């Protein structure tokens, strides 16, 4: 296979866990709730997957338990932010700190143990000979499902009435309430589901990418995912490309080292972050006269009796 395809494959497999985390973050924020707990939830998702899979050797059970555990963590965040109307930033940080501590504690027994898992791959041999499309010839099912989920979420958010309700809840909860949409239920639902997506990010990381639990194995990817939400402008399709872009930048850095382009490796390591700044500047400049696309009540708890 030619070099471009190899880089694309590395980008896609490196970006998939980011993609899940970004999609989860988008669901949260579209409903008007900032979730900075991504890192902690990813870690809990990863450690639960490790523990359950080593016990049961069953991918489906592992997946379901992981969804349950991260859903509970999401519910905790939702309860704090929606029912108790706590500060969403503080609650999210608490979830991250709690998640990383708890995952380290409950993961002690499985730390370092290799996870004997083989993720089924979908082989599309007829694509092998076509340039560029050969990238898709041998991807695992989670990568495919992450792509499908991005598209489904896009359709959900922009083409269904539920999705429009979601936008209303995130933009103007009191109007949505007057329309008869249950703001509280909508927010709870999307925070919990979004957190499950973040759990999937951890699940993918440990099942397909680096199959053994090590304390703090996400090493900051949750935070990159939070930046990517803005990068993707709350759009699942942009998120797909944003995640692959970031996944690819890391591996591009290594390839530039191999080709001996004489660029210091410290600089290569900065590329993703420099790229973020440049892209944000570009997007900001391009849309400077347009109204912000950010959900307008993002970060504000909804209180029916309160006027905004």
């Amino acid at each position: 296979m030619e070099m471009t395809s190899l880089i694309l494959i590395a980008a896609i497999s490196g970006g998939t866990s980011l993609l899940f985390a970004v999609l989860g973050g988008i669901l949260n924020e579209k409903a008007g709730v900032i979730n900075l707990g991504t890192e902690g939830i990813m870690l809990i998702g990863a450690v639960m997957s490790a523990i359950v899979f080593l016990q049961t050797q069953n991918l489906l059970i592992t997946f379901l338990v992981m969804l349950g555990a991260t859903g509970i963590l999401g519910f905790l965040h939702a309860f704090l932010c929606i029912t108790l109307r706590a500060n969403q930033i503080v609650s999210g940080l608490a979830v991250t700190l709690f998640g990383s501590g708890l995952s380290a504690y409950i993961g002690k027994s499985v730390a370092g143990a290799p996870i004997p898992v083989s993720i089924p791959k979908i082989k599309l041999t007829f694509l092998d000979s076509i340039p560029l499309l050969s990238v898709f010839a041998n991807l695992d099912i989670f990568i495919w499902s992450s792509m499908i989920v991005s598209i489904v979420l896009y359709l959900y958010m922009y083409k269904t009435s539920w999705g429009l309700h979601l936008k209303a809840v995130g933009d103007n909860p009191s109007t949505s309430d007057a329309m008869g949409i249950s703001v509280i239920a909508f927010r709870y639902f999307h925070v919990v589901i979004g957190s499950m997506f973040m759990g999937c990010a951890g699940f993918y990381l440990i099942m397909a990418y680096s199959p053994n639990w090590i304390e703090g194995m996400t090493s900051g990817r949750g935070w990159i995912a939070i930046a990517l939400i803005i990068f993707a402008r709350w759009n699942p399709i942009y998120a797909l490309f944003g995640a692959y872009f970031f996944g690819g930048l890391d591996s591009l850095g290594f390839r530039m080292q191999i080709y001996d382009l004489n660029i210091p490796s410290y600089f290569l390591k900065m590329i993703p972050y420099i790229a973020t700044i440049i892209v944000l500047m570009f997007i900001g400049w391009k849309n400077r006269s347009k109204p912000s696309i950010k959900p307008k009540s993002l970060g504000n708890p909804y209180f029916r009796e309160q006027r905004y």
Partner: protein
Amino acid sequence: MKKLLFVAMFMIIILTLGACSQASEDEGTKEEDTVETSAPTETTEETDTEEEKVPRVAFVYIGVPADGGWTKTHDEGRELVDETFGITSTTVENVPEGPDAERVIEELAQNHDIVFTTSYGYMDPTNNVAKKYPDVVFMHATGYKTAENVGTYQTKGFEPGYLSGLAAGSLTENGKIGYVGAFPTPEVIYTINAFTLAAQTIKPETEVNVVWSNTWFDPTVERQAAVSLLDQGVDVLANYQDSPAGIQAAAERGVWGMGNDADMSEYAPDTYVTNPTINWGDYYVEMVQNWIDGKWESHSYLGGFKEGMANIAPFGKNVPQEVQDLVNEKKEEFFNGTFDVFTGPIYDNKGELRVAEGETMSIEDILTMNWLVKGVNGTIPE
């Protein structure tokens, strides 16, 4: 509303503390005295200076013993100390290099006799604290600053690195080997150089392609670095990293994999070769014994095969017998001290002659090495 938030936060803290106290009970049964970084004041109960001087020993770790690499090797040494002297050493895990380290080391110094600080970045904190506690013995791993009561110790990573290279050179078919290095520090550089020199004794044209991950520990990045080398078509992949992610990536493609510090065969049973390992235990026991006998002196120690500090992991099950024999034969020469890795002529990868024919490098030169030998494709950032 704010009150409710505080109540909720308080609950979380209580829950976390509950989990932690359970954790330390759990540890206690394993005869470990793991202490929170914020309160490393619990000391060993066995201290009884009346009858015989039993040392109070403490270890400061950069990671956790379950990291499968660096900290694991130190913790195995700690276990040997505990068994030998029937004591329970204090360990503090996950201590970041910097001001926190100094605080932790100082608290340990107040009620311990020997403190082992096991990461390069603890060098200045250790020496600062040592000035304030002249009666306490400090042992700092991998550093170069010693004092009246501070000693340093390090392994000759280039000796097992050479043997790994010998195995890699024998196994490679296309003469392209990949090496994921963490940081371009002398420790990593001399290991890669020794590795390359050894591989070239088997096949003179062997190339070692190096990428720097700029992290000791980040499985995702390590894997990407590994994949970028695998895409180049390397058929042996070595990793100077703390996690086995690179070995796992190599195994998925059926490529030979090598790691660092500890036996990593379980992560890639079919494609694992071997890699350098470290045994600190005997040295730790000797240091504690010296302290008991009252003859501990500051020193700077470098241990290789001969001293029993460096070794290589057992071979993976698919490594051919003749390769194993070849490596074991060379290993004997290290044990006998009849072989020097860095014997001239050695050229660097820019073509400059670094070690003239018939000369050998001094230990000082090896420990400050900042160039790569001929045949290494890679650059050291300025």
